């Protein structure tokens, strides 16, 4: 590699990335099929973490178009987060064990 193109910060990211993938498979492998939809919508909310990325770009932005771009990105990211968690919570509150016990 010419003059060390791969910074140690970048490589650390790669290690974290790989380990998190293994962890993800390990955690999900045991999920019963009953929970696949809430799981999917819950993970859907979690990837809304890109919202942070949009905020980090908007924070120091000094040109109008950059602001506009990042502003739109924050809206979309926030929508992903809020919608995802709300809908997942709504689904999960319906899962109950005993018939009629403590129905809403």
């Amino acid at each position: 590699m010419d003059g060390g193109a791969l910074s140690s910060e970048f490589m650390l990211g790669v290690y974290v990335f790989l380990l998190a993938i293994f962890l993800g498979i390990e955690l999900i492998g045991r999920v019963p099929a009953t929970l696949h939809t809430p799981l999917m919508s819950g993970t859907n909310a979690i990837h809304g973490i890109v919202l942070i990325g949009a905020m980090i770009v908007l924070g120091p932005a000094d040109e109008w178009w950059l602001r506009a771009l990042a502003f739109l990105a924050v809206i979309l990211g926030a929508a992903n987060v809020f919608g995802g968690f709300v809908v997942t919570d709504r689904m999960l509150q319906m899962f109950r064990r005993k018939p009629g016990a403590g129905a809403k």
Partner: protein
Amino acid sequence: MGDFDRGDLIQIAYLVAAVCFIFGLKGLSNANTARRGNQLAAIGMGVAVVATLFIPGFDGVNILLMLVAIAIGAVISAYPARIVPMTAMPQMVAIFNGMGGATAALVAVAELTGHDFITKGDTVSILLGVIIGSISATGSVIAFLKLQEMISGRPIQFGGQQIINGAIAAAVVVLSVIIYFGMDEFGSILQKSDSTNLLLILMFALALALGALFVLPIGGADMPVVIAILNSLTGVAAAITGFQLNNQALIIAGSLVGASGAFLTLLMARAMNRSVTNVLFGAFGGGATAGAAGPAGEAKPIRETTPDDTAIMLAYSQKVIIVPGYGLAVAQAQHAVRELAEQLQERGVEVKYAIHPVAGRMPGHMNVLLAEANVPYDELFEMEDINDEFPQANVVLVIGANDVVNPAAREDKNSPIYGMPILDVDKAQNVVVLKRSMGSGFAGIENELFHDPKTTMLFGDAKDSLTKLTAAVEAA
């Protein structure tokens, strides 16, 4: 070593968020802890968002803009999320997923256009972020439109489609290579050239087009797999954004989601006995496949039944297994089926639900629909757990399901669904099929089960038939 400064506290907050996501995901894997798991993940998200507001060097006006944008995002999504019917859950997940993908793509575009000097590693992550985020964004929009039936759920195909998609994909790759090598190199840092921004925007547009074109030819029946893939892609896009910003919380959260989405994709594909490649490029459900489905039906005999006859049979059974399909949800008959089950349980009949992994429009969709109708989840059984019990069932009620109970998947080597794991309904003592009419399933395949001597057909609207059945069981 100095004291903890604001930057340290923010890093610790991100660490807390990542731990919340991991434990949240762990919680989601068990029905008893799932709700708390989701809430824990939401708390982690809240911590990360609040911490981000305090990053040093942020412009005051921009922070204000951030808060406004977050409020707008919350309002436009939380309201639909509260009222959306559970049948529409797949398209809801699809559209939220698209928003996440779009965010990742926009962040990447802003990162490159907003800087003059970028490290090589960041440049690669930016280019990947634009491509993956865009494909996920427009792909999700098309999936949403298909599921919402705003465009046809049938595969949309046109001449040379594969070639056009291939050409666009190639153009995207070539453009990213040109962008990368078109920059001036200073060690591990690249300086943008005059054409970089323009080329990037061109690549962005092409990647957006590719996402849409890529999902268009995929049929409605394959949407469970497509949604899982798109979810996984957005996860990867979020992780890539983490690389651009050197943010470990994004990398961890993104790759957790990427891995889980990929895992679910494989699970779904296996449940349909299809390879992921076949789902993506096979355009199933088109005329050719359906045409191959054996000799065109010379009206084979079927036995029709009435609600009263079925009710008697059910009322004097010991064990009844209910097989719900998407037709049940279409007829909004989830509550009606639960009432029938309760009526039978009161008479001492053992009632279980057998759920095929691809019942519904996304993985586990049928379980959610039944849970909404207050069916306790410990009465719901997965295919592998209940298939051995069918021979002991006096009656199996098949409601709005077709391909997932078609014995041709086990027996007929020429059937397009051959090899797909099915519920062994045909091994039960009696089968009653509730169906609107004699139409065929998504795959357009003849179903031998309907002509089996021990099968009777109860035609009509599922909700209507179930209500009649419940009344008749009560009277029996």
